[in-house]
Each structure stands twice: as C-alpha cells, then as structure tokens.
C-alpha cells in the first residue's frame, strides 16, 4: 500500500539545506527501491485534502516529472518505466488523480489535471485508458456536479487534447469532447471560472475539430459561440476567446470567408478601444492571417491552377480599412518606452502587423501608408514623427524595389537629418529605418542600391556621428552599419567602396564598444557584432593590413579582461560577457584570415599568443568553459592545421570541461563541434586524446540531463573522429554503435505530428548517418569487416528513412551517401543483404531525379558502389 511521505515532501522544501538534502535522499531512495509504490504514494498525497498544500504541490510536480521530460531519450525511458508498472497500481493512481479533480483546493485540481494529461499522452495513443474521456465527460454532463469539478475537468480536457493527437480519439469521442467544451462556454449555464476553463480548453481542442469545421452547421455554431465569448464582459475570457480566434485563423483559414466581416468588426472594435491584452490578440489575429497568406504565396507555383489550398486574399480585401486601423495603433506609443527588444505593446504589435501586411500585399500598401508618413513626419508632436518613421520602416519589405527606391531616394536625406531630431525615440526609430533600408534596398551584388558611391560618404558621416548618441540610438546605428557593410560583401568592384572608410569605422565601433553609459552590455555586444560583420564582409585584399592591425588591439583588450577585479558574481558575468565579445571578434578575424593563403601566415604568427589568451580566458572560470572562446578555438584549429597538436596538452582539460557542461548545453554543443574541427586538423594525432573524448561523448549521449539538441552533433562527431583515426576507432565500436542503433530506433518511433520533433528527428537521422559514413570511410581500406555485423541494422534504418515522406532533403542526402559508403567499405560482405532489400532501387531512382545537383551526384556515386557490389 501507499506510504506516508508527507514529512519528506515538506522537508524537501525546507529552508535548511541539510534537512532538504536528507529528505531528497530519502525520496530518491524510495523512488529507486519501489517506483510503483512511490508513484502511488505521491498520487495519494496529491488526492488527500487533509494534507498541506505544499506537500501536495511537490507530490504533483514529482509525479509529473516522473512521466515526462524535455529530452526525447529521457522521455522515452520514463514512458517505458510507466508502462512497466503493474496495471492495478496504475489504475489506482489514475483513480486518485481523477478524484483530485473534485478537490476543494484549486492548486491540487490544477496539478492533477496536468498529471492526468501526461498519463494520457502515454496511454491514450496505446489505447490503454479507454475510460478516460468517458469519465471526464461524465463530470460535465451531470447537472449536480460542482462548478470546481467542471472547471478542473475542462482544464484536464484541454491539457489532454494538447498532449495527444486527434487521431488517438474516435470521432464520437472528439464530438463529445467538443460538445462538452463548447457547452462549458455557454453564458447562461456557467459561471466565469467554468467558461474561462472551457474557452482555454477549446483552444487546445481546436486541432481536434477538423471534421466539425468541415461541417457548416457545426462550424457556424462553434464560430458563433467563440465570437459571443469574445464579447464577454470578463477581460480574461475575451482574451482567451481571441486566442481561440488566432488559432482558428491558422488552422481553419480556408473556411473563414463567411465570418470575415464579423471578425473584422470584432477585431477592429477591440484594437480601437479594448484592453491592451485583448487588443494585442486582435492584432495577432491579422498577423496570423498574414502568416497564412504569405505561406500560401511562397508555396504557390507560378502556374496557378494548382490544386493547393485557396488563397482568399483577406488582407487585400480588408486592406483599405485594416491599414488605417494599424496606422492608428502606431500613435499609441508608451511615453517612456523602454528601448528594449523585449518591449511588446500595441504600437509595436501594430507596426509588426503592418510589416506583415506589406509582405502580403506588396506594392498595394505603399499608397495607403505614404500619406500617413508624409503628413505625420513633420508634425511637432514626436509621437507623430516616430509613428510616421516606424510606418515607413515597417513597409520596406514586400513592395518592389522599383516602387520603394524612388521613395527611399527622396526620403533618405530627410531620414539622415532626422538623426538630429530632438526626440530620442524618433532617432531610435529613424536609425532602425535606416538599417532596414540598408538591409533591404542596398545590394550592390544584385545590382541595386539606394546608396551611390557619392552619397556613401554623407551616409557614413551621419552614422559615425550618431553612433555617439544615446545608447539605444547608437545600438540601432550599429545595425545600420552592419547592413551597410553586409551589402558590400562579395559585391565585385563595389566591395571596394567601403575600404577607404574601414579604419574610421573600426575605430568608431571600438570606441562605441568601450562606452560605459549603456547600463548593460547590449550596446557593446551590438558594436562588436557590427565590427565582426564589417571585418567579415570587407574586401580582404584591400583591408588585410587594417585588420592585421585590429588583431593585436583585440588581443590586448582580451588580455586586459584578465585584470578586471572580480569581487562579485556580477563582475564575473561582466568579464565573461566582454570576453565573449572579444573572442567573437578573434573568431571572425581568424576565419577571415585563414580563408586566403596570403593572409593565413598572419594568424599562424600570432597563433601561440592567441591560444595563450584563450587558455587564460578558460582559466578565468573554475568549472565552466567559455562558449565564444571555444568557438574561436575551433577556427584557430582549422587555421593552424596539424600544428594545433602542440596546444592539445594544455587545452584538453577545457575540452573535457566543455563536453561535461550539461547545464549550458550550447557550450557542450559547441565543444562537440570543436572536437570535429580538431579531428580534421590533427587527423590521427588526436589519437592520444580519443579515449577521453569518446568516453565523455558517450556519457553525454546517455545523459538525460543534457539538452537533446546536442545529441545529433555528437553522432556527427563520432564520424569526425573515425575519419581522423581510421581503424583505431575499432575499440569504440562496441560502445558507439549500440548508441547509434538505439538512436535510430528512437527516430523510428518518433512523433510525427509535432513539427519541432520532426525537425529534431531529421537532425538526429542525418547525424546518425554521418556517424556511419565517417566510421565506414575510416575503416574502408583497413578493417571494413568490423562493420559487417552492423550493416543489416543500418540498411533497415536507411530503408525506414527512405519510406518517410517527411524526411528532409539533407537527411535524404546523408542516407544515400551512407548507403554508398556501406557498399564502398563492405563490398561483397553486404551483397546478400542488398539483394534482400528491394527498397534501394526506388530510393536511388528518386534521388537521381532530384533537382539538387549534389544529391544527384551522390546518388550516382552510390549507385556505382552498389552495382560494383552486386556483380562481384
């Protein structure tokens, strides 16, 4: 039976670390000794209204975490663990949870709803909890049930819908769920709590309503209820209803036509006069419509008449009313608006939506916006000038260059002058608009630019003057310089245009980076990133001597960071941020110089000192390594080639540290990438370090703590290592290959409804193939037989992937390539296996038809390799 664990759960939240640790240990022991009983005890705790809220809360959290994790591999383990539990115990747990939905304590109800959804995510797709929906609906249909139970039940239904796929339910169940939810929104029957819960549940259930939305009567009913709810007197319910409308705009765009008139009225009223939280959702509705139409336009084939989903041109039809509505919002700036990227208010949302409208309709927006711009930009009220500039900046993407160029040409001088405006926000937006102009209308490489060689000097003079303005303005000016420089990248003769100004630009950017009035590091980071872009895009033949002078400057700045006095953790963070920026600059300089034979010696000469600096940067921290320094070391390894060997003894421990950094998973990921860089530079000279590296990589893979995004690069890294050390990889095969096979099996079982998961699955598959490719190529000439026992599994995996229509092009490439590698390396060993796999012919055929030259080439090569095997 369940155990009494209240004391432990309370102690685990104690302020006393000793008590806390002891309690955590006890709980962990219990969990390890008897998982089923542990979970049962937690559910008992959660369901018991006599228990303190605190212990129940923690019980719920622990329960939830025992069922779900962010990491796919960890999650799979948890699922298996739950499924292994005795059915009668599971059913007791579920009963306790369902019972908790009727609890008088809101928090217990809420937690229980979440846990039920997690169990549902495991059991419903496997048809192991058929009575769930029935018992939840039962709570709704009985009139005498308390409102709290109904509210919790609706919440649960919403969560369950979020967790499972609509295919997991039969249509009857979907209908019943939707009916229960929509009825819960009914004003006449329910209080606000139930209606809010119902509206939120509907948000999650909308995905299930495809069949219902196809049926006009049902659709009309749902739309009516949602629109009614959108006019509820409770703000929260109105907001929730508008969120539903936003979701409907995305999911059911093609059936919205009959409702658009009503919806325009509804949103229009809200944008004009409702509370901001609701108004933001109303604007979001139109942004979502834009998203849909932009997507339709992007996928529209030039020859119309394709049987794609219809484009209803809602934006175009609403344009003349919608644009003024949005322009209106631009005038609602906050007085002392934080000039921060995180700011989100009605004018920001309105401008963003305006930008999307411009991208949707193109030229048509220009005549609707320009009068607003022209009349407001000269007004004495800064709100008007700022709104006018913002409007102009927002519509620069979408309309044609031909349409915009004359306007920008005419307005450029005005904008340059506006950099001297008396209002900070006006200057901020003006600088941003300039950066948009340079981003979108300055592309000498493509033959157009609003900047002529003649006015470049004037433009730069203004920018380099304005960069001394307030930090928020200076930051936007950095953006303008960034895109200005980017335009000249590989722009033929035009790439020389910026060269004469380079020294001055660089010195201004460094001065800006050194400013201390920014309050935080944002300005500095923008200045350095702009410096990076200026360096990256510069004409190397003309500017290498300038950049060669920059190198010691940056190195000395990085050296000085070691002397910063560290008193607080704040100081340490500041030091780290500064080092990050400087390492970033070094990375770009190294990359730039190692791209040509003429400039590479500059890096080789300084390599010892640079490396010394990086090692010192690492030395500034005790347990973590510096992400940017790591990244720069990757560039240095490439530049120095096998010379990098001499740094390995010193550097290795930081490599280890990086590979062990589970919390800062980006650091871990970058370190994995650096291992690859070093492999390519050192070849088999990396061998002495491989035991350590492989050990850590394998640990990383097995870890459930490490963010999943690092795992694909680790598999790719196996390939890098194998390529570098060839047959010496043999001793890692018994460890690495089962991991690869395991990951391949997870790919096979992966959820395909979640876009993010599909993306991850593609990354994982590609990386597994890359690992196989590297290993096979590494063994090819010396010990191919090592890989024979793994060939069958790999072939099956390739087959599985080849049958997946969702697969990404890059996965296809990797799959085809690895098939060739398999044939190339193992030769006649796999003849029989290939004979038995009929799939490859069709797969190769598909690839050979591809428009992608590289894929075609690889497929041709693979075909040759396989033919060679088949005739042996």
């Amino acid at each position, binding site marked *: 039976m369940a155990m009494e664990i209240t004391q432990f759960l309370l102690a685990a939240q104690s302020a006393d670390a000793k008590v806390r640790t002891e309690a955590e240990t006890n709980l962990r022991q219990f969990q390890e000794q008897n998982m089923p009983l542990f979970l049962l005890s937690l559910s008992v705790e959660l369901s018991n209204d006599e228990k303190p809220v605190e212990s129940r809360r923690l019980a719920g959290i622990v329960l939830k975490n025992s069922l779900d994790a962010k990491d796919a591999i960890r999650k799979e383990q948890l699922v298996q663990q739950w499924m292994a539990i005795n059915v009668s115990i599971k059913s007791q747990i579920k009963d306790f949870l369902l019972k908790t939905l009727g609890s008088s304590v809101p928090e217990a109800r809420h937690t229980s709803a*979440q846990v039920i*959804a*997690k169990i549902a995510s495991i059991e419903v797709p496997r048809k192991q909890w058929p009575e769930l929906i029935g018992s939840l609906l039962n709570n709704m249909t009985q009139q005498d049930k308390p409102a709290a139970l109904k509210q919790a039940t609706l919440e649960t239904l919403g969560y369950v819908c*979020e967790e499972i796929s609509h295919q997991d339910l039969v249509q009857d169940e979907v209908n019943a769920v939707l009916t229960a939810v929509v009825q819960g929104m009914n004003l006449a029957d329910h209080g606000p709590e139930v209606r809010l819960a119902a509206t939120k549940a509907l948000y999650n259930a909308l995905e299930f309503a495809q069949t219902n939305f196809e049926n006009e009567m049902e659709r009309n009913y749902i739309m009516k209820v949602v629109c009614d709810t959108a006019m509820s007197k409770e703000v929260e319910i109105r*907001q929730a209803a508008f*969120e539903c409308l*936003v979701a409907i705009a995305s999911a059911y765009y093609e059936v919205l036509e009959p409702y658009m008139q009503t919806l325009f009225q509804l949103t229009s009223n809200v944008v004009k006069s409702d509370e901001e*939280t609701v108004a*933001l*959702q109303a604007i*979001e509705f139109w*942004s979502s419509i834009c998203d849909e139409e932009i997507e339709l336009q992007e996928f529209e084939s030039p020859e119309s008449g394709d049987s794609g989903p219809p484009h209803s041109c809602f934006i175009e039809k609403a344009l003349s009313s919608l644009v003024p509505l949005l322009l209106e919002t631009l005038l609602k700036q906050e007085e002392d608006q934080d000039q921060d*990227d995180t*700011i*989100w208010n009605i004018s*920001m949302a309105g*401008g*963003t939506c305006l930008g999307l409208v411009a991208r949707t309709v193109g030229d048509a927006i220009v005549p609707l916006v320009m009068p607003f711009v022209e009349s407001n930009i000269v007004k004495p009220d800064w709100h008007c000038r700022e709104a006018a500039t913002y409007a102009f*900046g927002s519509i620069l993407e979408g309309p044609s260059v031909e349409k915009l160029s004359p306007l920008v040409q005419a307005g450029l001088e005005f904008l340059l002058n506006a950099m001297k405006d008396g209002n900070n926000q006006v200057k901020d*937006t003006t600088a*941003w608009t300039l950066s948009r102009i340079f981003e979108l209308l300055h592309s000498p490489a493509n033959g157009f630019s609003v900047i002529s060689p003649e006015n470049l000097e004037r433009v730069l003079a203004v920018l380099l003057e304005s960069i001394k303005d307030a930090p928020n303005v200076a*930051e*936007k000016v*950095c*953006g303008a310089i960034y895109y200005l420089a980017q335009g000249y990248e590989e722009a033929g003769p035009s790439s020389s245009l910026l060269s004469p100004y380079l020294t001055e630009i660089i010195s201004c950017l460094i001065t800006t980076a050194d400013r201390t009035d920014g309050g935080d590091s*944002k300005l500095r*980071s*923008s200045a350095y*990133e*702009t410096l*990076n872009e200026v360096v990256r895009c510069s004409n190397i033949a003309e500017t290498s001597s300038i950049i060669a002078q920059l190198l010691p400057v940056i190195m000395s700045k990085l050296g000085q960071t070691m002397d910063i006095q560290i008193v607080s953790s704040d100081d340490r963070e500041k030091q780290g941020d500064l080092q990050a920026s400087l390492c*970033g600059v070094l*990375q770009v300089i190294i*990359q730039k110089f190692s791209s040509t034979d003429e400039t590479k010696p500059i890096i080789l000469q300084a390599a010892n000192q640079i490396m010394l600096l990086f090692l010192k940067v690492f030395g500034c921290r005790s347990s973590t390594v510096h992400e940017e320094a790591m*990244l720069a070391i*990757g560039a240095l390894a*490439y530049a120095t080639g096998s010379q990098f060997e001499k740094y390995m003894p010193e550097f290795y421990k930081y490599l280890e540290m990086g590979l062990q950094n589970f919390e800062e998973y980006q650091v871990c990921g*970058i370190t994995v*990438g650096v291992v*690859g*860089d070093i492999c*390519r530079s050192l070849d088999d000279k990396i061998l002495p370090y491989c035991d350590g590296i492989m050990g850590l990589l394998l640990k990383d893979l097995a870890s459930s703590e490490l963010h999943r995004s690092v795992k694909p690069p680790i598999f*790719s890294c196996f*390939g890098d290592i194998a*390529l570098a050390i060839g047959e010496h990889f043999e001793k890692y095969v018994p460890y690495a290959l089962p991991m690869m096979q395991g990951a391949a099996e997870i790919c096979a079982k992966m959820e395909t409804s979640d876009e993010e998961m599909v993306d991850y699955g593609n990354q994982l598959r590609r990386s597994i193939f*890359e690992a196989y*490719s*590297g290993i096979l*190529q590494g063994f*090819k000439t010396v010990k191919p037989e090592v890989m024979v026992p793994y060939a069958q599994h790999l072939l099956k995996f390739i087959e599985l992937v080849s049958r997946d229509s969702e697969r990404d092009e890059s996965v296809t490439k990797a799959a085809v*390539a690895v098939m*060739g590698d398999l044939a190339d390396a193992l030769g006649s060993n796999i003849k029989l296996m290939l004979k038995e796999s009929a799939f490859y012919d069709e797969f190769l055929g598909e690839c050979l038809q591809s428009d992608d030259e590289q894929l075609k080439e690889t497929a041709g*090569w693979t*075909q*040759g*390799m396989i*033919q*060679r095997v088949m*005739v*042996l």
Partner: protein
Amino acid sequence: MADDSSTSHRRDPIKSSVGNVAAQRRRQNAVTVGKERRESLVRAKRLCRVGATGDGDVPVEENDMITDEAGFLLDTQTSSAVEELKSAVAYQGKGAMQKRVNTLRQLRRLLSKSEFPPVEAALKAGAIPLLVQCLSFGSPDEQLLEAAWCLTNIAAGKPEETKALMPALPLLIAHLGEKSSLPVAEQCAWALGNVAGEGEELRNVLLSQGALPPLARMMLPNKGSTVRTAAWALSNLIKGPDPKAATELIKVDGVLDAILRHLRKVDEELATEVAWVVVYLSALSNFATGVLVKSDVLQLLVERLATSNSLQLLIPNENKLMQRKCTLIVVLRSLGNLVAADSHTISTVLVPGHEITDGVIKVLVKCLKSDHRVLKKEASWVLSNIAAGSIEHKQLIYSSEAVPLLLRLLSTAPFDIRKEVAYVLGNLCVAPTAGEGKPNLIEEHLASLVQRGCLSGFIDLVRSADIEAARLGLQFTELVLRGVPNGDGPKLVEQEDGIDAMEIYQFHENEDLRNMANGLVDKYFGEDYGIDE
C-alpha cells in the same frame, strides 16, 4: 498549456536591434563552416575513386595502367561472360555451336586482356565446369581451341587458380593425341605446361594421368611452334625433383633424335626450349645424361654457343605465357650439366687436343668476356668443372685466354662470380688426387697465379661470411703457405693481411673452419704470433 506558461501569442517585434540576431547568426555561421568542412572532407574521401558511375558498358581501353576501376570493369564483364557461356552451353537450338564459340572467344579475350587477367572472377562465376564441358570429345576444333585457351590463361594465374584446372586435365591430355588437330593439341600442351609449371604436386598428377608420352611425341614432328610448346611443357613436366620423368622422357622413341634435330635448327626460340629440356634431363637423370653425352648434343651446344655472334642473349618470348628469357644461358647450363654430371664426360669427350675441347674452352672464354653476369658465372662454373679434371685439362685452361679474365674477375666481380672463379683457379693449382689427404700442388700454376695477384682475392674470401667461400679461401691460403716456392708463403699471406683474416676464426662457431684457420696460424706463424701483436 500543461506547463503553466500562460504567456499568450507573442511574436518577435519587427523593430529589433542587431546585436542578438547577429551574434546568433555568427555562431551559426561558425558551426555551419564546420559542417561544410566535414562534408567536403567526406566527399573527397568518397569521390577519390571516380569512374564507378555505373556504366558497365564502357570498354576497357588498351591501357598500360590497369586501374582499380578498369580491373573492376573487367571482373564485371568476365562474370557476365561466364553467365553467357552458361546459357550458351545449355542452349541446344539453332546456331548453338556458333553461340558457344562466340561466348568462349569473348571469355578468352577477357582473360587475355590485361596483365592481371580476371581469373578469379571467372572461377567465381563457375567457368571451369563449363569449359570442361566444352572440351568434350567430338566438339568442333574451334570450340576446343577456345576452351583450351581459356584454360591456359586460367592456369597462368595464382597457384590455387591453377589447381582449379584439375577437372579439366584428363580431357586436355586426351586432346594432345595424334587425332587432334595441331592447334588444339598445341593449345592443350600449353595449358598443361602452365599446370606442370605450378609445382611438384600437379606434375605428379599429370604424370600419373599419362601426360608425358603424348607430349614427348609432339616433339617429333618438324612443326616449329608445336615442338616449342611441347618442349616447354615437357621441361616443366620433368622438373623433378624425382628423376623418373626425365629418364622416362629420354627413353621415348625418337625423342633424342628430335632433340638433336631441333638443336641443329636456326630457330633460336625452338632451340631454347629444347635446350631447357636438355638442362632438366642432364640435371636430374644420370641415365639421361649418359645417353646425351654419348650423342652429339655436346658438340651441338658448343656450336650454338660459338655461332651465336652476339651475346645479346636476352630473347624475350613475346606474347607467350612461357617465362623463358634467354637462349644462351640455357645452352650453357646444358653444357655445364653435361660436363659436371659425369667425370667420364670430361675424360672421354672433352679430350684435350680434340676439336670439341678447344671449342668448349673458346665459347667459355667468350662468355667470360660478355657483359652478362649470369653468363660469366655459368661459364666459370663450367670451367671449374673442367678444371677439376686431369692435369691436361688444367694445363689447357691454364694456358688459355681464360686465366687473365679469371684473375680480373676474382678481384672485381660480384661475390657469386668470384666464388665460381676461385673454384676454377683453385682447381688449377691442385693435382688430381687418388685418395684422401692433402692435395698435391701444381707448383708452377700456384706460383704464377699468386705472383699475378690472386692471393688477395682468396684472402677476401676468407673474410666472407659464406662458409663455402671462406673454406675455399682458407684452402687456397694453405696451398700458398705450404706450396709457394722458397717458403715465401707466410710472408705473402701476412702482406695480404691474411693473419688478421684467419684470426676471425679463432672462436668461430664452425669447428671445421676454426680448426683449419687456427691450425694454419699456429703452424706458420707460431703459437704466440697473435698475442704479440
């Protein structure tokens, strides 16, 4: 949302500053660069062998460089040629014969194509049983010829590939018979020659299956190429080490005559192959040697050596699988074998004063003068055999043109030749002995040769790691110590650092040499000679 995040729809504002995005983009770029480098590295590894783009119909060009790829294509074509042969053999309809011949010819061409014929591929594809089937009695000559040709080329492969011919041997032997057309018989002989060349085991199989008599009979006619092939096959077949086959061959009626007849011919290649037969006959079988010596063979060999106006002896057998390179060496070797095999030969045939004897010495001198190392060595070897003969033989050589040449060779030639030369010179200085004991000196020869500077050559041999050469050196040193007139021997040996050379043997592991060297040092240089130094 189940994870308590109540933040509702929220998109990135259009107005943002560049810092974060740029850093993100830069890091992304750095990561992408790594990926691109990985891709280009793997691509380079994959495509380093281009050409396998699946076009199986590309004909193999006449290319000196047999690349992997060409070899691969050849293998592919061979397998499919065998497959075609399979269906051609099974096919019984109209034009079946032509079809078989065509497919056989195709296979044969593939097997003849490169320096590394696709034998393995042919065997893997199951060529042997099909080829055996094609050799069946009553098959048209064209088919037999092509099949035997294929087998010939397969037999030229690696040992295990040659062995694969086992099932075909009885039919190949059967087709050697008189009823077969000459080209077929010749081709079969060729195939069998390849098989016999492989080793003793296969030779014994062939002999037990009766390959020798029909091959021997093929030597009888005057058809050049057939005789040549048969002679070559025979020389492979009787290689021994068992002398039985050689004896059997010489006993076959008409073979000796045929040998003599063919050796008289101008056809150099034919003579070479026949001479090889003589080499093996004389090397292996005393019976055969006896028969040969009594014939005109010796005379013929000397004539051949004498008339060969150039000593450009490398006559490669183009387009043949036979590995014979030269004529003269073979002839010389035959001569040497005959001279060495039987002391009787020397005393009764090479009688000093006879024309033949002068002739032999003359051709040997000619060989010593040649630029060819093997000829010099072989000639020295023959001379040493003759020098081991009677006093008259020794005097004959001593007074011939050979001695100055030999003396020069002793100081300048490579080791293997020097050793042979030393035997000749040594033999010249000792008289034939009737019984045991130290050989008697021919003082005149010894004194003269030493005076002409041969001692240092022998002392060099003393220092040699080759036991046989060292013994020869020591023996000659003993002759000098003992036999140079006026007791000048020890002085001469000392002058040539002979004592040092002998002291190497003070503690030598070879007891015989140790005793000999120590004995000489003790006897001629006193007990304490070495210690005083």
